[in-house]
């Protein structure tokens, strides 16, 4: 069991890192395209085509791909005025409740994200701007990001149930 947990930890950690790396790359692209568009519009009177559509698609991808790493580091904002004072089994119960809520929330997002991606692929959804590009790969990535966050919450929940210590980047 321990070996399986360690292997699963490693696999999920790598997927989280990969998702975050893609999100980070998109941040850089959004900044570059946004700045180029302003320069182009103001100085050359030639805006970068489809900047708005690209920014919209990129933003959705980066938001959902960053979720898993945020969950891994328990970076989501928590009011710990009561739960922070809990010890022993009460603290574990509080953490367990938080992880169940995370699984439920991300589970809903993944389920409906999957359906949205499926519909998007079925109609070959494309952007409406000057340059028409596929929207469905982005929707698949959105579903993947939510799914990774759910998987990460599940991994933390399993570790909690098995009484395994938190990995160093689990801690808030």
């Amino acid at each position, binding site marked *: 069991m321990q070996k399986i947990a360690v292997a699963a930890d490693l696999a999920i950690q790598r997927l989280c890192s990969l998702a975050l790396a893609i999100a980070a790359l998109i*941040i850089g692209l959004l900044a570059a395209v946004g700045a180029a568009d302003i320069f182009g519009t103001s100085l050359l009177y030639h805006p970068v085509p489809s900047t708005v559509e690209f920014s919209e698609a990129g933003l959705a991808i980066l938001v959902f791909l960053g979720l898993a790493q945020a969950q891994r580091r328990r970076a*989501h904002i928590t009011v710990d*005025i009561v739960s922070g004072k809990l010890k022993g089994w009460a603290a574990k119960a509080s953490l367990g409740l938080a992880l169940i809520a995370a699984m439920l929330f991300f589970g809903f997002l993944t389920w409906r994200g999957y359906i949205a991606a499926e519909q998007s692929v079925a109609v070959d959804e494309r952007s409406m701007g000057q340059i028409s590009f596929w929207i469905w790969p982005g929707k698949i990535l959105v579903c993947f990001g939510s799914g990774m966050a759910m998987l990460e919450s599940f991994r933390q929940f399993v570790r909690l149930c098995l009484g395994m210590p938190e990995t160093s980047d689990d801690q808030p």
Partner: protein
Amino acid sequence: MSDPLIMGAVAIAALLAVAAAGVPIAFSIGLVGAAGMFLTTGATYTVMTFQSLPYAAASEYAFAVIPMFVLMGAIASASGIISELYTAVNRWMEAERGGLFMATAVASAGFAAISGSTVVNAAMFTRIALPEMMQLGYHKGVSAGCIAAAGTFAALIPPSLTFVIFGILTDESIGALFIAGILPGILTAACYVGVIPLLVRLRPDWAPPSVSRFTLREKLTGLKGVWPMLALVFIVLGGIYTGVTPPTAAGALGAVGALFISIVRRRITTSDVWASFKQTAELTAVLFILIIAGLLFSRFLVISGFVTELTDIVINSGLSANMFIVLMVLMYLLLGMFIDPLSMLVMTVPFIFPVVKGYGLDPIWFGVILCKMIEIAVITPPVGLNLFAVVSASEGRVSISDMYFGILPFVVIELVVLLILILFPAISTYLPTTMM
């Protein structure tokens, strides 16, 4: 449970209970909102909302302003722009008794103009200013209090993340909110600089007698460290004010500008840039999931009829608009003692804002007042986010009890500024009316 008021009240109580049990705010709000929607409208509407709303919110062009300003702040922090700014201001102010307090206030206001996060601001200045304050014999509690309080300028001085989230939740112009925050932000910093000399005169043990350690030449040389901040402020706020750039594009320009300045001055490495990108991606995810949950909850409150009923009851109760504002101030100060600012914003704005509009109050002015209250909330004991940020970043130099004592004078200054902003709305509303 068909009465919308009872249903809304039960939902708010449930979300507070779930959040108090340790469930992150985003999941508490989102799940309670979903449960409420299910009970009000049934399964189909709920699942369709879960399918459409999160993607729609996360793919809204105007909301891309969040990662852009977070990135600009992250790059500015990593490249040392902030420490140079502090050094420059410090050289000019150290001749006054309490000069380091004033330098912290002025430099914090400067950094707030390129960073929207109060916590980042407070943590940065704890590392930069606190060691020097303590070495020179400044009172450690008041020093920590000054840093924590000055860190809150980022909530009011644009580009403030609090304004962005308020704008998203209320559909108000983020550009107008940014511009509206300029004068109140400057007023707050000016009050600090004006009151600190009086405080140290009354309590000489808080700051040692002044010593001038720098020549005029050194002071002038130090000003070189100010131009990167001024350039970024000019690019971002100038663009928004003149209407050349919408806030999102201004954020992108600011982020690229910060990177360009840092590269030209050789103050940033590739790994710093990559770390800033990753840090921005993670923080963006955290903020957006909170916004998405807030929008889900807000939709539930609207479709259940809670918002309409509450607005009608409050407006018809005979409560005057002024009394309503006083109650708001008390409510936010109380909530702020226990709940972090962004959660407070997401939890309360969906039902408070319609009442504000029902009273015919200026939404931009209310946005400024709300941000000011939130600014005060993050420094109000026992739970003030900035208090903990400073204590944690001080690496054992300051205890939480030192902090609780040291923050009090600054809470009083903030309350006075809040009163001024309530009594003179033009301070907040004048500049947006002159926008191009």
